[in-house]
């Protein structure tokens, strides 16, 4: 049984179609990265899965429960780590966890709180108010709160958005531990590196649809080939090089102050300028080629 099954799901907000005939299946035990630019429909998909948005049409099943009718028991067995910090800042760390243990009907609240404090490495700060914690500690607590009932499925909505690299790495370690325990994870992100490091499979979402899906390595091979040549030059020179490369049948994408010629291993002599830096193709190349958006 798949942990998540979405069939032809549509969700509109007035004239805007946020989710447009979405088909998505997440098998149990994997970490699926839902990768897409802002506005791709990732957060709406997450809200549909937690019953906080109701689809206009289509079928949704989570852990065997039909949504939205059986959303409540489905939520009892899934954990959610939101994009925005919504901890109760004046309340102690342990009380924040205890409240959610009760909301999730955990029988031994004290044991659940202790386990989460260990997980978030906050045992020594348990009686402090949340607003006394550093940003990294708060994010660890937010993650631990979503796991207070040991869910079978965890939804991570942009888990590291806006965090500095050190805190991001800390969270990746925690998410990696969660993966290793066999928990099914659906993680929305617009960070390429996050998806590459954590996801067993990546689904690229754009304009409310999944436009490609697979293991990161397979996606790269399928869409970007083996190598990418990056060229840094003044804008006029870049425009000329782009024209030449595209004339030779190569795909070119913007890469900040440079251009990236994707699949450069297929280029004939002369199509790649000498000053180009050749590197292995990445998921970022795939993302930008598929969505037309600059990656973060």
């Amino acid at each position: 049984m798949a942990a998540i099954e979405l069939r032809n799901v549509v969700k509109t907000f007035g004239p805007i179609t946020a989710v447009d005939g979405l088909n998505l299946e997440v098998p149990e035990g994997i970490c699926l990265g839902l990768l897409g630019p802002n506005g791709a429909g990732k957060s709406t998909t997450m809200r549909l899965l937690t019953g906080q948005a109701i689809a206009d049409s289509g079928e949704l099943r989570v852990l065997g429960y039909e949504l939205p009718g059986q959303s409540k028991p489905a939520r009892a067995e899934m954990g959610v780590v939101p994009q925005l910090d919504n901890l109760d800042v004046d309340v102690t760390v342990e009380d924040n966890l205890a409240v959610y243990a009760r909301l999730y009907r955990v029988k031994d609240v004290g044991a659940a709180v202790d386990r989460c404090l260990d997980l978030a490495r906050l045992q020594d700060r348990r009686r402090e108010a949340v607003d006394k914690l550093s940003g990294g500690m708060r994010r660890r607590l937010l993650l631990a709160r979503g796991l207070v009932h040991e869910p079978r499925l965890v939804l991570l909505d942009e888990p590291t958005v806006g965090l500095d690299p050190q805190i991001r790495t800390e969270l990746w370690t925690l998410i990696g531990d969660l993966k290793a325990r066999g928990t099914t994870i659906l993680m929305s992100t617009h960070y390429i590196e996050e998806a590459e490091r954590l996801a067993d499979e990546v689904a690229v979402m754009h304009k409310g649809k999944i436009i490609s899906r697979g293991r990161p390595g397979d996606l790269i091979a399928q869409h970007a080939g083996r190598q990418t040549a990056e060229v840094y030059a003044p804008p006029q020179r870049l425009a000329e090089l782009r024209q030449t490369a595209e004339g030779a049948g190569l795909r070119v994408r913007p890469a900040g102050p440079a251009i990236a010629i994707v699949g450069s291993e297929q280029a004939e002599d002369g199509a790649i300028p000498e000053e180009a830096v050749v590197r292995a193709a990445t998921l970022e190349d795939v993302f930008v080629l598929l969505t037309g958006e600059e990656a973060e």
Partner: protein
Amino acid sequence: MSAEAGPGRRTMRRLEPAAIAGVMSREVANFQTYWKGTTFSSVLEPLVYLLAFGLGLSATLVDEVEGIPYIQFVGTGMVATAVIFSSALPSMFGTFVKHRFQNTYEAILAAPVDVEELVSAEMLWIATRSAVYGCVPLVVTFFWGLDPELGMLLVPIFAFVTALGFAGFGVAMAATVAKIDQFNYVTALFVTPLFLVAGTFFPIDGLPEGVQIVAQANPLHQLVELVRGGAFGYQWEDILRFAFLVAFALVTWRVAIHQMQKRLID
């Protein structure tokens, strides 16, 4: 793993006590961090009115009303003032802040809690607090000669039911307004007139007939009459007054759920 039944087999009912208790436990945890300030203002505000109107007017203009010393007339009426101030206003502002600024409800609704349970818990918590704060003016009036009566034991229940109604009203308003400053309209159009035309400071039977009819639909007026019934003797109409308050609470409860459902579920 917490799941006790097989995949897709677990069933959950509406209005589960565990969900309501869980949401209320969050309120209690937060209340422990700010109870002093809230209690101070909730107790002091009606007391200021009680002393200003009760003592001020009884010393200068009014000795008694309907055979009751004016300070006791106002003291019993101030229960209603304490109830509306400690229910309608916190529910309006609290709900708005938790929804729009703190994203608290997004986290709660990701757990197995429905909007119906969330709203019910919020209303129950505010009504419980308000029932306690509402009794303060009555207790203070004991020091100005009001005799304790057995009938007063029902006052916390009357205050609780009325506060439930106003908590529902506040939640519904919070789910309806677009911006927090629109609460100024709600306060000016509803809260202040209800508080002034409740019979707290003067009997409403001296008002024009049309206003008297409107005042009968004011839950605060019914509460004032019930509290005075507890202090000076109940009448058979008080059963109808209490039924009216129960109906008021039920109506605002359903309206609050409806409005919050629209606001929280896309």
